[in-house]
């Protein structure tokens, strides 16, 4: 089962023929993902690395029956590509691109409302259902199939958590990077809800960071709705206020969006806290034993 993507996922890459687009599409295909096409305006009708290329997302979807798109378009044009995918009614759009202007994402967010599309990202490592399908830039080999769902705003910190799990021979159902931008397509709660319904997921790791209140809202949702155990780490306890810590969204602006404030609410809502990112694997092992 898992969530979002599986063996039946048919992927197209928007921005396929670029260096990054090509590299990561081939990595995903090597992992076992069914890559059915790509989009690069002006290169329609050609074959790139054995993958048919189309000029528009509409055409690519019509010709290939694709049900997922990975966006590798440079930041200045990425929102346009995402909007094209929404208009073409692509069910799942995963945007890897980092650095999309906020005002562009505000328009994308408004378009998503009431549409047939779900957007994951942008500024994210992508989604992987180990052993079945990888869409994104994460190293496939550190994952193993299993029953722990992972949701995170950060790329490398997700790898860290996954690695700790795999070392303990705890597999993952699906790992979802929701991205480090202040405006994104899918939030913690959306994914938590999917994991709660997914029979293959027994526990969830949620990795948040400073900035915004998404983790606090997720904590309250968990308390009300979640029957499965959740382990959480919030990055940025040592971050100074008012400084943007690498991610566009990782900035403490008030009292509610510090790591301390988030840890506190998570704990109050019955979430198992890992104060150190090195404890994530161990904490999951503990909650699974209960």
């Amino acid at each position: 089962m898992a969530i979002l993507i599986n063996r039946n996922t048919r992927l197209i890459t928007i921005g396929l023929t670029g260096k990054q687009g090509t590299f990561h599409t081939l990595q995903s295909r090597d992992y076992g993902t069914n890559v059915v096409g790509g989009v690069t305006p002006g290169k329609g009708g050609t074959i790139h690395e054995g993958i048919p290329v189309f000029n528009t997302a509409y055409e690519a979807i019509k010709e290939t029956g694709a049900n997922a798109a990975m966006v590798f378009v440079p930041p200045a044009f990425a929102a346009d590509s995402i909007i094209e995918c929404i208009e073409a009614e692509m069910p799942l759009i995963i945007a890897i691109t980092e650095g999309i202007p906020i005002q562009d994402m505000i328009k994308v967010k408004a378009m998503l409302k009431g549409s047939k599309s779900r957007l994951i990202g942008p500024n994210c490592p992508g989604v992987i259902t180990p052993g079945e399908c990888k869409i994104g830039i994460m190293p496939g080999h550190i994952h193993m199939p299993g029953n722990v769902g992972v949701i995170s705003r950060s790329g490398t910190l997700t790898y860290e958590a996954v690695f700790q799990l795999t070392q303990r021979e705890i597999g993952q159902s699906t790992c979802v990077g929701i991205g480090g931008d202040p405006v994104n397509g899918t939030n913690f709660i959306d994914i938590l809800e999917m994991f709660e319904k997914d029979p293959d997921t027994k526990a969830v790791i949620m990795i948040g960071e400073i900035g915004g209140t998404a983790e606090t809202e997720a904590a309250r949702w968990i308390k009300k709705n979640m029957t499965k155990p959740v382990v959480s780490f919030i990055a940025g306890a040592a971050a100074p206020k008012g400084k943007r810590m690498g991610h566009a969204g990782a900035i403490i602006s008030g009292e509610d969006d510090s790591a301390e404030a988030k840890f506190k609410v998570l704990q109050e809502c019955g979430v198992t806290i890992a104060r150190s990112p090195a404890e994530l694997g161990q904490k999951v092992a503990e909650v699974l034993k209960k």
Partner: protein
Amino acid sequence: MNVHEYQAKELMREFGISVLKGGIANTPAEAVEVAKKLDTKVWVVKAQIHAGGRGKGGGVKLAKSLDEVEKYAKEILGMQLVTHQTGPEGKKVLKVLIEQGCDIDHEYYCGIVLDRVTGQNTFMVSIEGGMDIEKVAHDTPEKIIKAHINPATGFTPAVGRKLGYALGLKGETLNKAIKFFDGLYKLYTQKDCSIAEINPLVTTKTGDVLALDGKLNFDDNALFRHPEIEAMRDVTEESAQELEAGKFGLSYISLDGNIGCLVNGAGLAMGTLDILKIHGGTPANFLDVGGGATKETVQKAFSIILEDKNVKAILVNIFGGIMKCDIIANGVVDAAKELSLKVPLIVRLEGTNVALGKKILSESGLKITAANDLADAAQKAVAAAKGAK
């Protein structure tokens, strides 16, 4: 990116937002020249630094004569202005804005920010103008009125009325306020602001609606389409190291500890600072080398870290994804040799090509402490920094 008040006001004028007449001066003599050209009996001399709270710190003075303009400009120019936003060291004032005075009737607060929950631009106004708005939001949240803007319609007169009536405005003043809000929203969206804050927005005895102060921040990711905003950058207001790092695609923030950090990925870089603190250490910096780092950027990262003389040990923490461990290892070895590294170096590598990376490090002949995992790396870095003299 931040700009000065005088630059923010230039942009406001472009968008039809009322501001007082004024001009910028670098010397007391220039200040007098600017003041002479303003048709007014009183002048306001305002320090231009990228921080709020300038008035309380003595950076804003009301002058009643040209002599006073000169006197205050002399006092303020060159002063180390300390406010609650500058830190104890303060910021050196290099420019003053000379503005005409006005007869204030009432002070309000007006801002536009991103509401991250809804993903919409959001107006915030309050009758508590001129105050620290974070304090108002905390103590009396009911005094802040919000209005979300639907990106499909943009600003509408209805939003303007909601905000204006909430402030108790009426008649011609209300109409002027609506025009003010409309202009501010256009400026905010068309110039890709991330914060617009008018504190205070004032109504005058003559019925005008004016921005007495103005703070604009811009979305760094949108600067590519605003060369005119990029041209307003004041490099004297920014950290030289952070700017230099940015040129190489490195995200660097200086902190006050003694363990230099070189990490890939913003989340893991934050997590590394956290775990150092948990084990009793203090990080000297945040540094994300990014996913596309090369041998050269790793070398640059080392030289930036080492410019900080407080650094007593360096922790390299890499989880190779796109980034391959062997590339990092080569960069680390070259940098350590070229910079003849004196401080202890602790390296933790994991992920893509990890075996090759570890081999490069162990065969380098350099004194490198290898760490097995994240916790081990933090403990070894903390111990090394404490052991160093």
